[in-house]
C-alpha cells in the first residue's frame, strides 16, 4: 500500500450495521504508533487503551503471528502485525492465551526481552488486527477515528456487501453519491483513510 497516496473517505451508517465493518478490522489496518516499545506501552500510551481493559480483556495477542505472553518485555517493531483477541475457547484457544499453562503445546512463540520506554521511540506504522469481543469493544472508536487500508480491500468488501446503505458518503471531504465509490477505489494501489461513523 502506498501511504503517500491516501484518499480520505467518511461513511455514515445506521449504528446497527456498524458490525459489518468489523471484518475489515479483523483483516488488518494500519495505524501510526510509537514503535520499539513494549506491547503494553504501545496499547496504553500509544493507542490510548484503558489499562484495566488491556490487562483483563485482551487475553490473546499475536505479534507477527506468534503468541505473546509478556506484554512488558515484548517489543513491537516498525512494520509489525499485532493482533488482539479476547480469551478463546478450545484446547488451541487455551494454548495461545497469554501466560497459558498450556503454552508448552505451541509450535512457536515470541521470545521476550528488554524494551525501550515509549518516550524514547519514534513513530512508525504497524498493522493492527482486532478480533471478536475486542473488535466489538474497540472497533467503533477506531472506525470513527479512521483506519488505513488498501483501496482494493475496501472495494472488495463493498462489492461483497451490496446491501449496505450509507446515510452519507464523503470522498476527500466532499459529499458524493455512494455509487461513485467503486470507481474511486478502482486504483487498488492507493491507501484509504476510512472513517465509519454511526448516525
Amino acid at each position, binding site marked *: 500500500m502506498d501511504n503517500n497516496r491516501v484518499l480520505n473517505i467518511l461513511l455514515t451508517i445506521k449504528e446497527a*450495521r456498524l*458490525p*459489518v465493518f*468489523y*471484518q*475489515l478490522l*479483523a*483483516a488488518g489496518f494500519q495505524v501510526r504508533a510509537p514503535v520499539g516499545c513494549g506491547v503494553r506501552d504501545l496499547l496504553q500510551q500509544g493507542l490510548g487503551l484503558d489499562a484495566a481493559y488491556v490487562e483483563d*480483556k485482551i*487475553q*490473546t495477542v*499475536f505479534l507477527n*503471528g*506468534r*503468541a505473546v505472553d509478556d506484554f512488558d518485555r515484548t517489543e513491537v517493531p516498525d512494520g509489525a502485525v499485532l*493482533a488482539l*483477541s*479476547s*480469551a*478463546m*475457547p*478450545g*484446547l*488451541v*484457544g*487455551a*494454548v*495461545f492465551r497469554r501466560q497459558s*499453562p*498450556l*503454552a*508448552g*503445546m*505451541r*509450535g*512457536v512463540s515470541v521470545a521476550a526481552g528488554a524494551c525501550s520506554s515509549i518516550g524514547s521511540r519514534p513513530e512508525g506504522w504497524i498493522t493492527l*488486527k482486532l*478480533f*471478536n*469481543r475486542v*473488535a*466489538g469493544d474497540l472497533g467503533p472508536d477506531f472506525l470513527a477515528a479512521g483506519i488505513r487500508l488498501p483501496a482494493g480491500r475496501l472495494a472488495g468488501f463493498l462489492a*461483497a456487501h451490496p446491501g449496505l446503505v450509507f446515510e452519507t458518503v464523503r470522498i476527500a471531504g466532499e459529499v458524493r453519491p455512494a455509487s461513485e465509490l467503486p470507481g474511486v477505489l478502482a486504483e487498488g494501489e492507493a491507501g484509504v483513510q476510512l472513517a465509519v461513523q454511526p448516525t
Partner: protein
Amino acid sequence: MDKILRINMGAENGPACRTEPLGDYAGMGGRGLTSAIISSEVPPLCHPLGENNKLVIAPGMLSGTTAAMSGRLSVGCKSPLTGGIKESNAGGQAAQVLARLGYAAIVLEGKPRDDTFYKILITKDGVTLEPDNNLRMLGNYDLVDKLKEAYGDKITCISIGQAGVMKLPSASVAITDMELRPTRHAGRGGVGAVMGAKGVKAIVLDDTGMKMRQAADPEAFKAANKLFVKGLRDHAVTGQGLPAYGTNVLTNVVNEAGGYPTHNFAWGRFEGCSKISGETQAETETSRGGNATHGCHRGCVIRCSGTYADKDGNYVTKQPEYETVWAHGGNCGIDDLDAIARLDRMDDDFGLDTIEMGATIGVAMEAGLAKWGDAQAAIDLVAEVGKGTPLGRILGSGAAVTGKVFGVERVPVVKNQAMPAYDPRAVQGIGVTYATSTMGADHTAGYAVATNLLSVGGTVDPLKPAGQVELSRNLQVATAAIDSTGMCLFIAFAILDQPETFQAMIDMINAFHGLNLTADDVTALGQKVLRMERDFNEKAGFTNKDDRLPEFFSKEGFPPHDVTFGVTDAELDSVYNF
C-alpha cells in the same frame, strides 16, 4: 436411569428387546459406559459391520437432570473407520430424554437376517420396533418430518441418513435439537455405519409422562448447580465469546497463529479467513434474521450455536461450527459462508461427519478432482456421496481411502481418521494427542480441562519438549472423565480458570448420586476409561506404529513459521505411562 435396553437385531424371530439392570456397569455413564461395554463385550478382532460388534448409545451421569450442560449423548462401537474402539458424542435433546425414560444405555446387537430397516419407538410404556423400508433412503431432514407425522412433535430422534444406510465409514448418527431438526451429530468414526449395519434407521424417544431425575440430596444438588451456572456465565469464554460468536470465533485466531490448515494442510494461513470467521458469520446470521446465540439442548447456558439463514431469511442449517467451517472452507480454499452452510446442511442430511468430509474433499482437490476454492465442485462431490455413486462411496469412506484411491501422499489422518482444524506443527501438543488418542486424530480427545487442578502426572514444565507429552496425557485423562459425565466439554474453559466452578461440578455429581468423589477420583475414572480403550485397541492389532502422525508433518515445513512436528517417537510412546 438404572437399566440397559438391549435389542438383538439378529434374533431368530425378528428383533428382540430385553431390559436388564446395570450390573457391573453401575455408576458409569457416557463414554465410560460405552467404552466399558465395548471393551468387555465386543471381540476386538470382529468386523465392525458384523454381528459381533455392538452400538452403544448412552447418556451421561447427570443427563435427564436439571444440571446445566448435561446433554451430551455418547455413541460407542468398534469403528469401521479406524478399526479401533470409538466413542463419539453429540448434543441435542436425546441424552436428556433417554435418561428421563430411565435408560443408562441402548445396546444394538446382532446382525439382521435381511436388509429390512426398522424404526424403534421408546416411551414410558415400553419399546416397539416396526419395519419401515419406506424410510430407508431418506435424508435425516425428510426422515424426521415423516417421524413427526407419525408420532407428533414431542419426540426426539436418533437417526441415520443415506450414508449410514450405505454403511459408509464417514457416516454419523444424527440427534435432533430443541426445534426437532437433525442438526447434532455423533460424527466421528463411522458410528452411523454401525447403526446402519444393525438395520436401525431411527430411534424415536418420547418422554411424555416422565419427570426429571431426582438427586439423592436435592438441596445440595441445586446449590452446586447454581454455582456451576454462575461460573459458566461469569467466564469470558463461556459467558461471552462462545455465546456471541460460537466456536467459529477460533478462525481468525488460529489463522493468525499460522495454525489454520489450508489447501489440505499445505500452509497455515487462509487469505479469505475474515470472510468466514465467527465474527462475520454471527453478523451475517443476525442481519438475515437468524440467530447467533442458541443452545443445542434444553439446559444449555453457554448457547454456542445459532441458526444460519439464506439471503432471503430462510433456514438453511444450524450455525456451522469452527471445524465444519474450516473443513469445508479454508481447508478447501473456499471463502463463501453460504456455500459452507449448504455443505453443512448436506452433511447433516446425508448423515456425514463434517470434519471427515471436508478433509476428504481437500484430499480430492489435491488429487485434481476439483479446483481449490471451487465451492460448487465441493457441493457436487458431497452430493455424489448422498447419491451413493461409486465416486461418492469412495469419498464417503473418508480421507484415507480417498487418498489411496487417487494416489495422494499428503493425507492428514491418524488411524485412518481425518485431523480437525488445527495443524499439529503449529500446536505440537495437539499433535501428540492426534497421534496417541485411542480414537484416531481427534481434537476433543485431549481438551483443556483443568490440568493444573487435576495435577495428573505431576507438574509440567511448559518449556521442555517433554512437557507437551505430559500435557497431552493429562488432558486425555481429564477429557475421558468429563466425557463420562455427559457434560459438554465447553465447560472446560470455566473449570480451567475457576477452581470453584470445578468443585461445583464435582459437588453436583456427588449430590446427585450420593457419592464423595474427589478430584483424584475423577482422574482415576479418566485413566480407567483410557486403559480400557487402549487395551481394546491393542487386542484389535494396534501397536505404537499406529501412534504416529503421517510422515509429511515431520518433513514439510509449515508456512508461515516453517515448523515441522518435532516430538520424537520415544516421547509419543511414553504418553500411556500412567
